[in-house]
């Protein structure tokens, strides 16, 4: 049996080899190949007193909370000076990363948005649900995506997909002016939101040099260079100055 000259192109081993080559170029790096960026965002200056939301502006909202006092989430600083609700993300990430099929949820609950700050990928669904017995409104003040302003009746579900990266897209409820939320829209999955201690972790980051950027609704933005190596954790501390 004589072999034809094009045989290598159709043999299974050649296809397997090509697939391996393509996947190594296009496929996102696996967990074991990436590193980790972890850290804390701290507040410098006099810690501001949390400001109370006067829910009695809407009697139905007030009823939902009873005697519990509710505070604004625009600047939440822990005793250890960690700032909550800071959106942290990597800038300078190359490559394509598959878009998750699961939507990101944002609730209108207890006459507030929950979570206050979140992140969603370009092309991923953002689901906004009104779980309150009162009507709300979604006033999305996007600049690089299509803004919208819609009434959201009780129990309603709004789905939105953003087509461009934008840090941050703002949301308000015009019926309850104290309600606000922010969502960072990114092309890659390397973002996080700081917890109540101001801490964050971004996992599975491909090795390389990036800028770690941090955004806060009142304190602004800042960045710091980070170099990620495979299998290692890079710790970063960022500090925002208050009272300016």
């Amino acid at each position, binding site marked *: 049996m004589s072999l034809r000259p094009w045989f290598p192109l159709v043999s299974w081993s050649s296809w397997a080899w090509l697939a391996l080559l393509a996947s190594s170029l296009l496929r996102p790096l696996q967990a074991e190949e990436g590193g980790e960026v972890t850290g804390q965002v701290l507040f410098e200056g006099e810690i501001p007193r949390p*400001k109370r939301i*006067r829910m*009695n*502006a*809407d009697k139905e909202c007030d009823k939902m909370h009873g005697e519990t006092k509710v505070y*604004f989430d*625009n*600047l939440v600083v822990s005793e250890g000076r960690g700032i909550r609700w800071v959106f942290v993300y990597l800038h300078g990430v190359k490559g394509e990363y598959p878009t998750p099929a699961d939507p990101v949820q944002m609730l209108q609950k207890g006459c507030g948005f929950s979570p206050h700050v979140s992140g969603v990928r370009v092309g991923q669904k953002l689901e906004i649900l009104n779980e309150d017995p009162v*009507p709300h*409104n979604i006033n999305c003040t996007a600049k690089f995506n299509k803004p919208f*302003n819609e*009434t959201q009746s009780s129990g309603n579900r709004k789905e939105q997909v953003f087509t461009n990266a934008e840090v941050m897209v703002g949301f*308000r409820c*015009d*019926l*309850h*002016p*104290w*309600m*606000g939320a922010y969502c960072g829209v990114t092309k890659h999955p390397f973002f996080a939101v700081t917890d109540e201690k101001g801490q964050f972790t971004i996992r599975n980051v491909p090795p390389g040099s990036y800028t770690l950027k941090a955004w806060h*609704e*009142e304190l602004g933005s800042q960045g710091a260079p980070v170099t990620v190596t495979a299998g290692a954790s890079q710790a970063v501390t960022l500090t925002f100055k208050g009272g300016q």
Partner: protein
Amino acid sequence: MRRAVAWLVFWLVAAGVVAAFYKRVLWFPPAVSEHGLSMDSQFSVSFLVIGTLFVAAQALFGYAVLRGRGKSGQPPSFWPSNPRFEKRLILAIVGVFSMGSEKAWANMYFRKPSPDALEIELTAEQFAWNVRYPGADGQFGDTAPKFITRANPIGLNPSSRSGGDDLVLLNEVRVPAQRRVRLTLRSKDVLHSFWVPNLRLKQDIVPGLAIQVEFLATKTGQFEIACAELCGLGHFRMKGTLIVMEAQEFDQWLEEESE
């Protein structure tokens, strides 16, 4: 038979409407302001005069119809017009109304500002009322749009000396009874209109202008504040509460809130 039923229905409806007005079922909510009472009495005078003229004109019309009935062969007789009488009648009516209403109007809009009035600033926005009291120093702090955040809806300057004790509320205006209150009305975005039916007070709010109105509430209680100018999507939910309190109770509340 059918005709009799029609007449019966007509008279029953007419009697029902008269009774409803007489018993104040179909009427305004009770007036709780000083000028509101004078406006109501002005309204009653207007209603009485115009109502009397209306009934008289209808009676005259009915009389003419009844008198001319069945006389199809005869040409109708006309009363010649009397321009002098008509002019005098119109002038008299205008005179009576303008003299009476001018007082009610001028009392509200051309009154000198009362020096001891309680100052309250009301900043309307889509779709809420931001209410500001000047605090213990009696002075409002500076504001600027650049300071506006969700937690600082009127943009109070944090380094303003007199702004530190300003009290900012949402959708709730508390005032003492029997004391003049001067409201300064502002808007953050579009046209709104401050309306408290019980105060008989309705004032448009224009962005860029600070419009002042004064009132004196005579009765304690809770009354609805509504936006009377279609201002957008959530206009229907733009409502607040006016709480009129006893003077002493009000002072105590203000002190507690300012702490």
